């Protein structure tokens, strides 16, 4: 830590990445301001499926995911008991229902073993039947991670926001960045809808809007696209599903919340409009995921779907986030999580803080290099 702790940092975006970064920076004594154009956790961070999952991560993302999990496991120490109670660890399971899925699962376990990771394990057909006897259909086995689970996303985001506030951070909601630029003195001047401020560092956690922000700064033109992954929630039913469930080679994520409600997702994308902030809903396109859910748990078919929603998320062409130093001094990026950033959030917050404070991180950020697309 070779730097003064009185330096100022502005974080743009009050999602989980921005709020976690704010927490770690404020805790380290930095003067932190979060600028959020809507309200905390308004878009992808509050409207995602809440999966806290190491399972199925891109190999290049595994170290970051494992580091993030260390924080999740000790969450009360970071955001307090009350907010941390929104995390429900159990186990995460991706089952194979066809030969393709079976092959994918076995290949994956082999690949992880070769890389030295043991957190994902293969369950045979019989072990799977024993573990989740309530599942129906042709089940050929599955990949399991113990200790993964789900969380109520907005409560976790709010938890980090509150923890940041408790450490002296400032969070300005309804505060959109209009313009910002770096002066020759090395200070960022940020014009917002409600006033202007100065800062030594800017951390770009603006999610789907991050490429626009980077352009405003005069940094790279990021190939970031915006979509709105859709979710459906049912009415309450008696508890039958202790695990978060996915299907190898298919789009489904299914979980039963503590309220008894089933949450059905799987990343089917609807349109997103970055001008109006409106996310579309194409409910029929969820039918495939929903059919799969009915096949695995036939009892779910009589449950009424109460609501569908989607949150606007930024996607990169390689489905990997952008995390690292920007092309301008004092600019750090952390965005483009391509619909799997929620579990990473606390880890990303720590990494972003380390980048700002010490310019180095405990996990390698090479795969997430901002300039990887030139």
């Amino acid at each position, binding site marked *: 830590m070779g730097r003064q702790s009185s330096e100022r940092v502005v974080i743009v975006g009050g999602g989980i990445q921005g709020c976690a970064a704010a927490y770690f920076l404020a805790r380290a004594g930095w003067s932190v301001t979060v600028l959020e154009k809507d309200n905390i956790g308004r878009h992808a961070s509050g409207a995602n499926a809440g999966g806290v999952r190491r399972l199925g991560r891109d190999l290049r993302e595994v170290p970051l995911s494992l580091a993030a999990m260390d924080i999740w496991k000790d969450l009360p120490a970071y955001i307090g008991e009350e907010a941390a109670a929104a995390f429900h660890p159990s186990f995460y399971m991706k089952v194979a229902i066809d030969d393709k899925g079976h092959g994918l699962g076995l290949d994956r376990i082999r690949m992880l073993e070769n890389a030295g990771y043991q957190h994902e394990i293969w369950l045979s057909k019989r072990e799977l039947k024993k573990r989740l006897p309530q599942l129906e259909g042709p089940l050929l086995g599955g990949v399991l991670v113990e200790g993964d689970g789900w969380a109520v996303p907005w409560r976790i985001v709010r938890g980090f926001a509150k923890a940041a506030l408790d450490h002296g951070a400032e969070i300005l909601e309804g505060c959109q960045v209009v313009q910002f630029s770096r002066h020759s003195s090395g200070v960022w001047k940020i014009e917002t809808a409600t006033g202007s401020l100065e800062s030594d560092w800017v951390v770009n956690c603006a999610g789907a809007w991050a490429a626009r922000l980077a352009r405003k700064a005069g940094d790279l033109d990021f190939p970031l696209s915006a979509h709105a992954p859709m979710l459906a929630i049912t009415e309450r039913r008696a508890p039958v599903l202790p695990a978060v469930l996915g299907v190898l080679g298919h789009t489904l994520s299914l979980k039963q919340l503590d309220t008894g409600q089933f949450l059905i997702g799987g990343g089917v994308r609807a349109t997103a409009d970055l001008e109006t902030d409106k996310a579309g809903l194409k*409910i029929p396109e969820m039918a495939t995921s*929903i059919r799969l*859910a009915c096949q695995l748990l036939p009892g779910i078919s009589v449950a009424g779907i109460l609501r569908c929603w989607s949150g606007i998320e930024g996607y990169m062409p390689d489905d990997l986030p952008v995390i690292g130093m920007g092309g301008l001094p004092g600019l750090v990026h952390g965005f483009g999580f391509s619909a799997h950033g929620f579990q990473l959030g606390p880890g990303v917050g720590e990494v972003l803080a380390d980048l700002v404070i010490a310019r180095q991180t405990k996990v390698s950020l090479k795969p997430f290099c901002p300039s990887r697309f030139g």
Partner: protein
Amino acid sequence: MSNARDYDLIIIGSGPAGMAAALLADRSGLSVLMLDDQPGAGGQVYRQIGPNSRNAKTFGFLGEEYFRGGDLAGKLEASGVDCIHQAHVWQITEDNEVFYSRKGAAASIRADFILMASGAQERPMPIPGWTLPGVMTVGAAQTLLKMSATGADGAVFIGTGPLFYLTIWQYLRAGFGVKAVLDTATAIPPAGAFRWILPALLQAGILAKGWAWRAEVRKRTSYQNGVRGVSLSGDGKLEKISFIDRLGKEREIKAGHAFLHQGVIPNVNLGMAAGLDYRWDEGQLCWRPVLDQHGQSSRKTVFVAGDGGGIAGASVAVTSGQLAAARIIRLGGKTPRGLPAFLRLRHWLNKAPRPFLDAMFRPPTDWIVPEDEKVIVCRCEGLTRGEIDQAAKMGVAGPNQLKSYCRAGMGRCQARMCGITVQHILAEHSGRPVRDLDYFRLRPPIRPVTVGELAMLAENDGQAI
């Protein structure tokens, strides 16, 4: 998903607005599909009025107003309009594809134009004990009467408004005993109401009819007005009604049934979920869609007619349906045929008494926001006023931020029962007027559609159900 089933116009709801619009559009050469959630035409006001229904023959106690709907329903049945009843619409997409569920399956149909004529709901009246068995709304009591001549002897009616008196009058005519009528309005209408008396007199007949209903109710029941502080209680079901009478005296009535009513407000869920712009109406204490004089919404191919566009009653619903249909017909390049003469004037005349009635029956917010913090506000999630107060104290800006503190409005009814109350509570805490607060962001499906129905949706594609 465009295919041979596409229609020029889909009308949602076969109440007076929907039926009148459908007839005009059909006559003028448009292909029209009517989607309606009831077993037969009529809507709420003319429920089950169809020419072959039992009601038309035997339910004379409902009064002549009710039977006016028979003419429209008869013509509708004889017309070329395709009607699908028991169709529960749950989404209208940006490209006018209408999704609905019917008898356990889901389907969709597209149209160039959509007319929402999906009517009104009763304004929720969250008072202590309103969730007890034995308590329901006056509208629900009237529905039972219209559906099967069913009623409860010895019930107490609590509230006010035109529908309140009409229903009690029908109840008495149907031969049910009414134990008491507790009118929450004062005997003398608020002074402000008389500003609107002149236009209202243009429809003196309607006022006179309302007056006659009220006079008969006053004569034949144990009647009190100016009633305040109503509280319902009982062990597992309604047993006792406590209230403060006009003179400030605390009183009690023993009763097993109470029917509540504080007026009606537009159904907003379908329109809001379809992305129409809505504005808070301080006069009617409700949200209503932003419409032009033809009922055209902020989405140019979507129109709203009838009480869903603002409460105005059955006769206005008819003329508003005709105005919307005429506009849609012209936009579709055709000429309206058999357009009633002086339609715009008639529409205006039909609307004339409304501001007076609105002012006369506008409920004080006491009936919208319970004073007692133990009263349940969000019935689906069982949340009390106190719990919403608590969230508000933590700086919740509006209904949409509330969900990160508590689950108000997130249940089965999608805030139909608590939306306005929650908004008033948050307004009170923030010191901002209700109109400045967002309403709940409503998302399809606007009514629960089962997982099984959705799963079958893709398989059903291309077939009406």
